[in-house]
């Protein structure tokens, strides 16, 4: 019996310590005197790794998801003679939901796992300890540029995803299935609101960027420094970040569009 309580207690303490550590890590990485000359090249390097290299998968999947939306939406809407509502259907589902969420999931898989593995391996090969030996704060040097790069690049990726998706829906709907081109755009424009849809989608993608990047960095920094530990941390990053994105999406949707 006491074994059971011991287990529960250890779990709770572990998770509280984890949350506390993540928070402390966040604060010490983000807050502090900015050193633009030193950190700018590091940031650019991470923007390249995190953002530019994720661009291809985001653009290709955005195009295909938009085309599938166009195709599926058309087959349903044409039954009601309302195929001209295809534009708003594609645009709203991309801007409000699919853009931020699918980008978040892909970003967790493409960039988040790489971040975790990289930092985990740095820890396993004691590069982080060496940095500390040289009086370089690894949080400022390793974590902070990756964090900012993730936070900035993911909303941009989500915007690209939505834009390419809308264009894919237009290609299928207007170019192939024969929805009137002007009606496609005009009905879309009258249905899509700048503030309600576009801005809320961007806010969502910023929140997801924060959560995914942070989970990836935390898991990497706390990884058990063995090969098995790094693999477990990488898996855990993808699973936790994906679940966090989907769960947060529901909460954000309820706040933004539910009331």
């Amino acid at each position, binding site marked *: 019996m006491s074994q059971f309580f011991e287990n529960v207690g250890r779990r709770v303490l572990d998770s509280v310590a984890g949350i506390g550590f993540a928070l402390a890590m966040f604060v010490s990485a983000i807050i502090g005197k900015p050193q633009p000359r030193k950190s700018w*090249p590091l940031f*650019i*390097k991470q*923007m*390249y790794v995190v*953002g*530019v290299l994720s*661009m291809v998968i985001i653009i290709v999947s955005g195009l295909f998801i938009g085309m599938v939306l166009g195709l599926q939406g058309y087959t349903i809407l044409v039954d*009601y*003679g*309302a*195929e*001209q*509502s295809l534009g708003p259907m594609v*645009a709203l589902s991309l*801007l409000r939901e699919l853009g931020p969420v699918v980008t978040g999931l892909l970003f967790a898989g493409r960039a988040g796992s790489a971040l975790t593995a990289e930092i985990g391996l740095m820890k396993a090969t004691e590069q982080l300890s060496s940095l500390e030996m040289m009086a370089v704060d690894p949080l400022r040097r390793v974590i902070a540029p990756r964090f900012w790069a993730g936070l900035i*690049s993911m*909303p*941009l*990726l989500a*915007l*690209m995803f*939505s*834009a*390419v998706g*809308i*264009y894919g829906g237009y290609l299928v709907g207007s170019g192939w299935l024969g929805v*009137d081109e*002007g*009606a496609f*755009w*005009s*009905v*879309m*424009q*009258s249905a*899509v*609101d*700048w503030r309600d*849809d*576009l801005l809320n989608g961007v806010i969502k993608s910023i929140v997801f960027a924060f959560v995914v990047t942070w989970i990836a960095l935390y898991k990497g920094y706390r990884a058990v420094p063995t090969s098995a530990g790094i693999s477990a941390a990488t898996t855990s990053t993808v699973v936790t970040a994906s679940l966090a994105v989907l769960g947060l999406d529901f909460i954000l949707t309820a706040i933004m569009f539910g009331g």
Partner: protein
Amino acid sequence: MESRKTQLWVGIFVVLGVLALFFIALRAASGTMTTSGETYTLYAKFDNIGSLKVRSPVKVGGVVVGRVTNISLTGDYYEPLVEMSISKEYDEFSETSSVSVLTSGLLGEQYLGLQPGFIDDSVSMLEDGDSITDTKSALVLENLIGQFLFSQGND
């Protein structure tokens, strides 16, 4: 060298992201589209345009010949004035042509149906900037039901 290339790519990445934002903001949320090719402008005054929108198509017998470019209120009685640009390819509409607000399908979008008028020596052709006088307004379901009930009561 390596760092220059990285910076270049990051620059391209950020610019693409901002372009995507502009594309969505201008193309999907609002903005104007230029009809391809040469066009000329016609005007038509209606009593009621229903849910006709800017960029709605103008059709002759179902074939798209132009687009609605502007909708405004005009005159002392605030009548809706629709401005449409018609492709130069079709510039031989007589001034007896009529235009009506129609609906595509049961739930579909509204569009302008242009009906070419008869041609003889006494009628001239519509030029750029002319108005079409013979217009039929949109069918408003509530008015229709009201008229129906009214005529039922008279029997």
